[in-house]
């Protein structure tokens, strides 16, 4: 069986809500049935077949080709299977992802991994603001799973993140780990300002020390045994983080303005 492929047949002028194009929604459907499904395009409703050429039959493996940054909500609430985006994706990639894997070969817009629960989201390019954050009005962001970004991420990475792992091999923007409740964010590149702003708990694992504001306090350099478990667990992922073996880190704690117990570990 070949992967079920959605080939965008035009350059979209409005955002396309792809939340129904997941293995969960398409299981057991024929190509004709899928083509006839309604889909939101801007503020109108059209058929999937009006926007995509559909080929292949394996609904557990879905491929998006000739993509655009207007393709929003790819893999939303998906609970099994894999989705490959051969190009850029729009906002809310992996929204509420419950399980399965999403691989995006290009860049994404904001709110990737928003409300994510479990599974793996792999982004080869850059991603926008609010990676792993919560959707508007929610008090908690990402609740589990693993996000790997090979490029850069925007501002507010892991805003209100509750659990899970975000690994960014490039740079991250301002307010990385803001209001973070728990979980782990790793960044190998540079960070913007106000890192760990109002951080409650959780871990920021950094290669380079960012400029820190006054309410992030230095606790000195230490050997932390849990890092060996963490790095060992990353061996199964395609990420630079799996090559680390050091347990030696400089530990900062904050945000004291919130009486926070979050930590920034700077790898030495």
């Amino acid at each position, binding site marked *: 069986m070949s992967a079920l492929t959605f080939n965008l047949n035009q350059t979209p002028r409005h955002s396309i809500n792809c939340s129904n194009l997941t293995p969960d929604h398409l299981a057991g459907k024929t190509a004709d049935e899928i083509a006839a499904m309604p889909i939101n395009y801007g503020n109108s409703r059209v058929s999937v077949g009006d926007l995509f050429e559909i080929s292949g039959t394996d609904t557990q493996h879905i491929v998006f080709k000739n993509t655009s940054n207007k393709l929003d909500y790819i893999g939303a609430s998906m609970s099994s299977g894999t989705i490959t985006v051969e190009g850029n994706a729009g906002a809310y990639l992996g929204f509420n992802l419950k399980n399965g894997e999403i691989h995006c070969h290009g860049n994404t817009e904001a709110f990737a991994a928003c409300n994510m629960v479990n599974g793996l989201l792999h982004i080869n390019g850059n991603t926008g603001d609010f990676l792993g954050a919560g959707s508007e009005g929610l008090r908690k962001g990402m609740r*589990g799973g693993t996000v790997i970004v090979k490029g850069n991420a925007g501002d507010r990475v892991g805003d209100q993140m509750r*659990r899970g792992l975000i690994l960014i091999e490039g740079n991250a923007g301002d307010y990385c780990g803001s209001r973070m409740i*728990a979980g*782990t964010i790793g960044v190998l590149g540079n960070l913007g300002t106000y890192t760990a702003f109002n951080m409650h*708990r959780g*871990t920021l694992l950094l290669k380079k020390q960012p400029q820190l504001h006054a309410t992030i306090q230095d606790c000195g350099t*230490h*050997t*932390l*045994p*849990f890092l*060996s*478990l*963490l790095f*060992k*667990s990353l061996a199964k992922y395609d990420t630079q983080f799996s090559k680390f073996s050091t347990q030696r880190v400089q530990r900062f704690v904050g945000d004291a303005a919130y009486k926070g*117990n979050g*930590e920034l570990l700077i790898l030495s």
Partner: protein
Amino acid sequence: MLLNGIQIDDTFAEAFNMRGTRVIITAQNHKWAYHAANAMTGFATSVIGCGVEAGIERDLSTEETPDGRPGVSILMFAMGSKVLMQQLETRMGQCILTCPTAAAFAGIDSEDKISLGKHLRYFGDGFQTSKLIDGRRYWRIPVMDGEFLTEETTGMVRAIGGGNFLILATSQPAALAAAEVAIEAMKQVPNVIMPFPGGVVRSGSKVGSKYKTMFASTNDAFCPTLKGATNTELSPEIESVMEIVIDGLTFEDIALSMKVGIEAICKLGESSGVKRISAGNYGGKLGPHLFKLHDILNGSKS
């Protein structure tokens, strides 16, 4: 049955159901892993007075431990899940938390979980941190030597306790030397521990007593100084008896360790002073598992 001139009695060891768990202790080096493990398995010879029976199962190399440090695995058994939980928590708090560089991890998977660091984390007074790594939850508790790392829970399984055999010899040194040889061989068998001091117990007990408050008392039938005073099991030349008690995760594990131990003794031959191998048979009063010595040595399941 005669094995290399040593008589094997046609009897059986009687064992009972227990709850068991395994904990992996790691530290900076084996020396400190053993300090922690010895403390944790101290005063844990018999459930009669200690609550649990515990022992060190074996050394673990750096490749075998979760955190890549040298370690040891500990097996711990109790008569019920409640006692096991309570004893494990107490011993974790007093022996592992306190031991420099020591860390504790689950050593066995099971649907039933008991806490390793689940409650111990409150020692961190709010500074404790949890990390969920590969579906397993760990606790990092700040302590004066750095950070104490422990997994939240370990598995609890159904197990068997009280497998045993008796070594009957012409002298006390001969009985003890034979027991030491058996213990060294039995230490190589996985999933079992011999919880008594050095693996050997000299005060084997029978069920019941003439005193109302005692539910176990000296096994007078095997006491050499009572040969003329009681309904003895001993022939005139027997002057000392040693017992080896085995707790294990399964019937097969205990049977294998008994076979290995008895065969190691029989290799010493009659000239070692060992005359007979027997077992603690309590006439069905103690438990449902019967380890028949002849069947074990012939390799068939009892």
